[in-house]
């Protein structure tokens, strides 16, 4: 409990700082928020109107507090380009992005976990070495190259999957290539990590005892060795979410998926900074919260962490 409370305090502090930085972004832009939103050369009247709309003449801390209060209650402001609210835009697009990320994560773990266990079990065999080489190569393929390649191979050369995903037509089949583009790089990361940890675990005494008792290999690998070996995998999976978020920005662009990645790039080009700000703050806060959840999960899986803190 104390561990969780400590983490919670940390979470709140980080969230406050992260949201403040995002809030300040728009204020520190050259020309201030007026120029950022209206562009240079706006007439005095619209500037005055904007200043009144957003209460730009109040001191920064007050404006931050008000903005944060609004944000928490779901009001992230309004696009000055097309008038729709940021919450509406996010509400329409966030589910697709989340689905894509979950799909990618699922694919990555689906491949990485069995291969990680297998390569640790058969360490130093030819199978292990080939897997190692392939995953090293995969680490060197940026996801925009991966996506371009997959589109070329499986959407153009072979007409197996669609090259673009139409709005409203997002399903496991149409999202397969986008998710795979995101997943392949992660597979290598997960696999190498799990393999390393598994090899260390398999050298523990209790594994020897389990073998001596005559347990089946499968039981030893999955019941005894996998859980203690999965901790770093879990942590990195949490961090990976950050990767996936960045990745979706690009992948959505390539496959024309209407998610928040496409929204943020589009808004940047439109100079629609209030939308950019809203999306960034939601993404950053989400990322921080997910990592907080991973920390708690970590403690749940490994009692040593809870107890170490409780004693301390």
């Amino acid at each position, binding site marked *: 409990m104390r561990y969780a409370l400590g983490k919670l305090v940390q979470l709140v502090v980080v969230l406050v700082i992260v949201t403040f930085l995002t809030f300040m972004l728009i204020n520190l832009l050259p020309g201030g928020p007026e120029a950022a939103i209206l562009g240079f050369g706006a007439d005095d009247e619209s500037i005055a109107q904007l200043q009144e709309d957003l209460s730009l003449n109040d001191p920064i801390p007050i404006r931050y507090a008000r903005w944060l209060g609004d944000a928490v209650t779901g009001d992230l402001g309004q696009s000055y380009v097309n008038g729709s609210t940021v919450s509406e835009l996010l509400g329409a697009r966030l589910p697709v992005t989340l689905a894509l990320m979950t799909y990618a994560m699922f694919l990555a773990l689906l491949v990485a976990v069995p291969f990680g266990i297998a390569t640790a079990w058969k360490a130093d065999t030819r199978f292990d070495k080939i897997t190692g080489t392939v995953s090293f190569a995969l680490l060197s393929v940026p996801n925009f190259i991966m996506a371009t390649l997959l589109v070329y191979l499986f959407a153009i050369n072979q007409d197996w999957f669609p090259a673009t995903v139409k709005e409203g037509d997002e399903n496991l089949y149409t999202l397969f290539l986008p998710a795979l583009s995101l997943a392949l790089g992660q597979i*290598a990361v997960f696999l190498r990590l799990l393999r390393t940890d598994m*090899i260390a675990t398999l050298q523990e005494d209790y594994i020897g005892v389990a073998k001596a008792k005559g347990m089946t290999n499968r039981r030893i690998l999955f019941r005894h060795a996998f859980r203690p070996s999965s901790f770093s995998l879990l942590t990195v999976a949490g961090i990976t979410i950050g990767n996936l978020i960045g990745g979706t920005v690009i992948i959505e662009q390539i496959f024309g998926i209407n998610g928040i990645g496409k929204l*943020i790039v589009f808004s940047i080009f439109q100079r629609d900074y209030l939308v950019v700000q809203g999306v960034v703050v939601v993404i950053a806060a989400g990322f921080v919260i997910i990592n907080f959840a991973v920390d708690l999960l970590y403690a749940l899986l490994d009692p040593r962490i809870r107890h170490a803190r409780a004693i301390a």
Partner: protein
Amino acid sequence: MPAPSPDPVDAPSLSERPGADLLTEAGGEIEFDAVTADVTADESRHQLEERKLGIGFWVATAWLVVLVLLAFLAPWLPFVQDPNEIDALALRQPVAWQDGGSWNGSASDTLHLLGGDDLGRDIFSRVIWGARVSLFVGVAAVALGFLIGGTIGLTAGYFRGQYEKIVMAAMDIMLAFPALILALAIVVFLSEPGSQEATLRTITLTLTILSIPALARITRASTLTFSQREFVQAARTLGARNGRILVREILPNVIPPMVSFSLIAVAIVIVAEGALSFLGLSVSAPTATWGNMINEGRTALEFAPHIALVPCAVMFLTLLSLNYVGDQLRRRFDVKEVRL
């Protein structure tokens, strides 16, 4: 606790968890940690082996050397053309060894080894000029990042105390943003108002800022291990000042692992630059970058796949070489002391 220990009993806080060290970024999921991960497992095996660098190492190094030379000398080399010169006869011309390509410039007046793009520009020259951007941004951002982040990490790891806590907390805050999202925010922030195009300077600066936290953390980790060592104690006993100890005793030991690391860092920055230019947010359009070449080539993927695939291949080989050479060098320097 003198050095960060990998002991699982240490509660992994947001900052101490192994994965927190990654300079994750968007384009590719290359991560510092993932590359380090194998070092532990391979330690015992590799201690027995004679530490020699295999043929792969030299091939990768050769690729990098050739690429750097071509990129550096591009304006003076006779066979590297102007990357924006349009040769109408070379429109979507395939690479020389394929049907429709030519070795002797028979289709058009000049040789287009890697074919021509959608506008008839020479892909070979564009790839070389693109390498100039990628390599410059990669090397400059990592060098600056090490200068700033390295100084932060070195002093934090040596002086410890409140200073370390505050500085490292600031680094963690930066890592709390997903990397590409932070990059987008900084690019927007640094771009000149009224123009959407970012200059080379803006991009380099953005990626420098992005690389600082990870590089600071790494430098701090290896500083921590060295600052407890006997030779540092000895220097202190002899009355050496902090500055001298840092520069003469610790720095020389921290540099070798940093050098091998910097290659991997360069690869990561190149991917990030590629991602930004792929999105059209890096150096603006007519300038050739690998990212915008791939992006432009995608539209012709069906009829002239080489326009996108050639820069893809060059970029992949470069990243693979950087990662491989970096990884090999790291094993050679035996960085197991620098456990993160």
